[in-house]
Structure formats: structure tokens, C-alpha cells
């Protein structure tokens, strides 16, 4: 494949934001015991803060993508201004849902944070990041489409590589993001009531 660096980085930066957010926020409730036990504040802010802090890394990657795009003969259009904030918003919602669920479960079962570290590797290779969707045999492509990260990564790719917003991927990714946020929030709300008993 030509332009492999461009191809890889177009999804890899977004993936790093996702994986570091989930891995760090898995610990963030357990690490802030003293605050959780002594101060009242909405606990999900702790998780949102981790994801926003990790987003800074992603923002710094955008100039890099500009340079690499230019080097590969792609001229960023106004689509970037629209598409990147949109992709960030969708990914934020999705990551928040996953992180809320994982972080609250980690207070009940403390070994979940280690499982997350291992599973994250598995998910990385199961998501089309280092390889394109077309590399998967057609019969098995539906497996990749079950993976909610696939459409998200394809969305990022469509913006960076092709200067378009893939509406199909945007729709699927947003839908998945909202579903995961609802599940994550419901789980979090339910389990945080007994947070003081398990921390």
C-alpha cells in the first residue's frame, strides 16, 4: 500500500485517545478514594476529566496530520473543520460510555483494570487500524462491523484520507456512541450508590 504512514496515523491517533482514556479512567475512581468519600460532587466528572485531558494529545496530532497530508498530496478542505470536531464529539460520547461502565465495575472487581489492559490489545488488532477493511475477506467483514470502533475509525479515515465525511460511518458511530453512553450512565448511576461500601 502506498502512503501507509498517512493511512495508519489517520486512525492511530484517534485510537490512542480512546485506549489511553479507557485505561486511565478505569483507575480514576479507585485512585480518588479520599475525594469520593469526603466531598460531594458528580462522580462522572472524574471520568470526563480523564477523557478531556487525553484529548489534548489528539489535538496536538492534528498539525502532524496536516503536514503528513500535505506531504501525500492531500489538501485539507473545509471538511476538516467540520469533520474533526464532529468525530471528536462522537468519540467523546462513545469513550465516556465505555469508561463510565469500566471504571465503576473496577471498584467492585479490582482486577478489571488489568483485564482492560489485555483486552485493549485484542480490540486494537480486531479493529481495522493497521489494515484496511478491504483486507478482511468479504465473508467475515460483518465481524468487524459488529465492533463499534470500526465505524468510528472509518469516519476518521474518511475525513483525513478522502476529505469527505462518510455519512454511513457517522450514523453508525453516533448510534453506537449514544447506546454505549446510555448503558454506561445507567450502570454508573446504579452502582455509584454503593460506592462507599466497596472503596
Amino acid at each position, binding site marked *: 500500500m502506498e502512503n501507509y504512514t498517512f493511512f495508519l496515523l489517520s486512525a492511530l491517533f484517534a485510537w490512542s485517545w480512546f485506549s489511553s482514556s479507557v485505561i486511565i479512567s478505569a483507575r480514576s475512581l479507585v485512585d480518588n478514594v*479520599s475525594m469520593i*468519600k*469526603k*466531598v*460531594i460532587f458528580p462522580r462522572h466528572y472524574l471520568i470526563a476529566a480523564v477523557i478531556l485531558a487525553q484529548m489534548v494529545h489528539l489535538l496536538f496530532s492534528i498539525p502532524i496530520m496536516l503536514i503528513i497530508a500535505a506531504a501525500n498530496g492531500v489538501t485539507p478542505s473545509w471538511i476538516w473543520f467540520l469533520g474533526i470536531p464532529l468525530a471528536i464529539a462522537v468519540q467523546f460520547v462513545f469513550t465516556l460510555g465505555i469508561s463510565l461502565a469500566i471504571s465503576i465495575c473496577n471498584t467492585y*472487581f479490582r*482486577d478489571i483494570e488489568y483485564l482492560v489492559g489485555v483486552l485493549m490489545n485484542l480490540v486494537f488488532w480486531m479493529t481495522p487500524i493497521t489494515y484496511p477493511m478491504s483486507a478482511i475477506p468479504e465473508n467475515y467483514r460483518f465481524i468487524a462491523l459488529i465492533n463499534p470502533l470500526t465505524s468510528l475509525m472509518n469516519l476518521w479515515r474518511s475525513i483525513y484520507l478522502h476529505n469527505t465525511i462518510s455519512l454511513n460511518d457517522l450514523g453508525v458511530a453516533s448510534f453506537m456512541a449514544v447506546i454505549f453512553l446510555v448503558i454506561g450512565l445507567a450502570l454508573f448511576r446504579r452502582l455509584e450508590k454503593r*460506592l*462507599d*461500601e466497596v472503596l
Partner: protein
Amino acid sequence: MGPVIQAVNLTKRYPAFKSPPGFKEWVLKLPFAFRADKKPLFTALDSVSLSVKKGECLGIIGKNGAGKSTLLSLLLGTSHPTEGTLRVEGKRTPLLELGAGFHPDLTGRENATIVAVLLGLTRAEAEKKMGEIITFSEIENFVDAPVRTYSNGMYLRLAFSVAIHTAPEILLIDEVLAVGDESFQRKSEAAILSLIKSGVTTVFVSHNLEAVKKIAHRVIWVHQGKIREEGSPETVVRNYHQFE
């Protein structure tokens, strides 16, 4: 005027073994989950009812492990009762563990702002009060140094000063009047007393019976998760002394 804090039959049970098994063990045990062996529970509070009027200072005394701090954390809302109902009207300001929420690498000023916001002020209000907070805490020369360089006393003084300057409505105090040297202790006691006088409702947990007698209007003696006696500070403290 109705009570600001109204608790009816509060009961709090904790799992007796605090370290939960991991997810791995849980999955491995899943086939046997139906033979549910009842997990032993520890009852920290056993149907406690109390009410506090606006502007009243309620003292809570009792031995270690009697349930005083559990009661306070229920009133604060950081834990939820297993049974019973609790109604609290107004902003709750905890003075439990001083310095909760401080970040060691931020300066005293930054930490004070963050904690003030955590305790319910807006950022602008917090910055406006900063002068008062710093003067009261007596750390003028060090406010712009990171708090990890602070001595223990400076740290606690700053945390105490922030908490009492956030316009509390309900103050929940757990044994924190013994902050700093004698002159600062006198000063913080005076500050608390003036807050109480200005109509702040206070719940005050302490082993310092003299302070309880001086500050509280009414005292509850908690023993083994139950209210053993309730009444005027002098009577309850005297009976508590005899019991000891």
C-alpha cells in the same frame, strides 16, 4: 420552622469483608452462584432517627467504631442508607478530612480555588474570597508555592480556611478543630462559633468532650450503631463519662 435535617430509621450495613474478590473469581464461581451463600453484613448504624433545626449545633459523641463517622457520611451524602429515609435541605459543607481534593503539585492558591469550587462557590466568588482565605490561614508567604512543599500544619490550616469561607449552610465537622498551634485552634474555634451564631446548622462529631460541651446545643451519644442517649450537652457528656 421545620428541621433542616430529618433522618428516620437510618440503617447502614456494610459487607463484612471489605476486599471484594476479583472479576476472575466471580466468573469462576458463576456455576455455583445459585447456591447463594449469604454474605455476612456488618451493621454500622441501626435505625437511627434524628432531626436538626436550622441554626442548631448537634454534637455527636461515642466510642471509636460506634458509627459516628458513618452517620456523618450519610448526612453528607457520600454514602447512601441501606434502609430509612433522609432529607437534608441546604448546601452541605464537609469538614471531614482536611485537604481532600488538594493536588500536591498545584500552588496553595490554585488548590484553594479548586476546593472552594468543589464546595459550591463559583470561580469568581472563590477568587474574590481568596484574600480572606489566605489571611485566615496565615500562609501569605507560601500561597504561590506548590502544596507538596507545605508543612502539615500549613496544609491543614489552608484546607480549614477554605472550607469555612465557602458560605456554608450546613457544616458537617468530624474532629478537625485540632488544627495547627494553640492560637490557630482558638481562632478556628471562634470562627466556627461565629458561623453557628450566624445561623449555620452544624453537626459536630468529636472525642473532645470539652469542645462538644462548649459548642453544641444538643448532644447525641451513639453506641454500637444506636442512639443511646440524647439531650443537653452537660447531661449526656456526664453520663458518657460515667459509662467510660
